[in-house]
């Protein structure tokens, strides 16, 4: 069942943490294996950020994503840069507040891509009052849409990964993201 997931956006959006949560959920709380890798520019904030997760029900040898089954884009720059790697019949999840899928409409049609729009940034601002939890909102949407991790595992992984004292807000953000895709 090897599933390759790429989450991309700006540095500072918590892209890496979103990937870590997926990996933790799959490998520690669902009975699967996961490897998370990342790439980053020398800029700590604002540069392009990309995080990749491979989830499988058996031991993962090759740790890198070659051609993602699932692409999650939280910036338009990242969407344009990485859309071309997405597998045929793959899943694309975008934040419509930070991307414009019309720019990749041709690719979506040609490759029969399933597209989901999850307004993670707006939901984070409006429902939680904290823009910085947009990544966790997105984890909720990914969980619901792709089912690569279970809801229970996702919540446990969030609790184990976010700073102490912020668990409640983050779980709320996750629930809001999960509801977006219903």
């Amino acid at each position, binding site marked *: 069942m090897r599933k390759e997931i790429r989450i991309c956006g700006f540095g500072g959006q918590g892209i890496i943490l979103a990937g*870590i949560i997926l990996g933790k959920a799959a*490998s*520690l709380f669902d009975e699967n294996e*996961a490897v998370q890798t990342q*790439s980053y520019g*020398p800029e700590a904030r604002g540069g392009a950020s990309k995080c990749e997760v491979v989830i499988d029900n058996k031991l993962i*040898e090759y740790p*890198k994503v070659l051609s993602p089954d699932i692409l999650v884009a939280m910036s338009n720059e990242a969407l344009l840069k990485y859309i071309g790697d997405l597998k045929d019949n793959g899943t694309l999840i975008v934040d419509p507040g930070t991307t414009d899928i019309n720019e990749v409409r041709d690719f979506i049609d040609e490759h029969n891509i399933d597209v989901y729009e999850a307004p993670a940034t707006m939901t984070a601002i409006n429902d939680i009052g904290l823009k910085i939890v947009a990544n966790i909102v997105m984890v909720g949407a990914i969980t619901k849409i792709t089912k690569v991790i279970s809801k229970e595992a996702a919540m446990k992984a969030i609790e184990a990964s976010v700073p102490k004292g912020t668990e409640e807000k983050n779980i709320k953000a996750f629930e809001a993201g999960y509801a977006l895709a219903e």
Partner: protein
Amino acid sequence: MSEELFIQGNEACAKGAIAAGCRFFAGYPITPSTEIAETLARELPKVGGSFVQMEDEIASMGAIIGASWGGTKSMTATSGPGLSLMQENIGYAFITETPLVIADVQRGSPSTAQPTMGAQGDMMQARWGSHGDYEPIALAPASVEEFFYFTIKAFNLAEQYRVPVFLMADETMGHMREKMVIDEDKIDIVPRKRPELTDDYLPFKHVEDGTTPMPAFGDGFKVHITGLTHDERGYPDTNNPETHSKLVTRLCNKILNNRNEISSVFTQFCDDADTVVISYGSPIRAVIEAVLKVRKEGRKVGYIKVDTPWPFPNEQVLELTEGAKNVIVVEMNLGQMYYEVDRLLKQQNNVHLLGKIGGMLPTPDEIISKIKEVEDK
């Protein structure tokens, strides 16, 4: 008791160091190794250890040698440019037989090249980086869990043979996160052997297995440690050809005579293999994926995962490739361990190189293409 974690390779290395009894770290920040320093800066005080950020890598290496003679297991972590700066004091650690561990999380090279990209360009720097004759031990972890256990093994080998031991990781290995299980039953710690305080104790005695117990400063032995050629007492004796030859030969032989004890490989499918792929560190994971695929297509291909590039596992590799026509070495440089393999196997096999630089891990497809190219020629 066991514990499951989803952590980075660099964090696993730091945890391994603490489990092995490391209680001193000196280092200088450098991508992509910095998380080892950061983790130990946080964790060492919690176990009665000390962390110090030095002014550069030269000083870091000096500090861990000093700490080792102070009676504390010690390590540093760096990447290629830092390893270059450490080389003079690494030579000092070899000639003074100082146990310590150096984690090198390799990045694109030469010079500062590619700080955030993976490579294996330091393999020969670990082997020959300092001047003169010496025999290093180097381990190459290929998973987060292995980075933890190999770090413990590195400390154990360092103590057992009184040598610096290198952990040759790479950016992918350092930054990748995956599940690892810490099983306390699998942790075995080799403590430093304390000599008996007698009048005839010699800190550099030419003992049969090559390694004599080492006191700590303050134990009452009043040892003199010098980077100059020294006699068994540790006193400089720089103009005596025999003293020098005896010392340096022993330093080399204590590793070479124990090559089979120290070196190890992991292997599959070599029994019937026409082609054997040899690799180490993170590229081996692409090799395994590729070998599993081509075997499904009916090709007789096996692989050897070299866990200890230095000393190179000569006997195991010679034996495992005996029936093979072709050997392919996969590494993230333009040929380093390849030359070691070629030197060893050229009478027996056709040795080929798949060397990839630029920062990306070789892909299974690239390895499959190479296998086909070699076999179908």
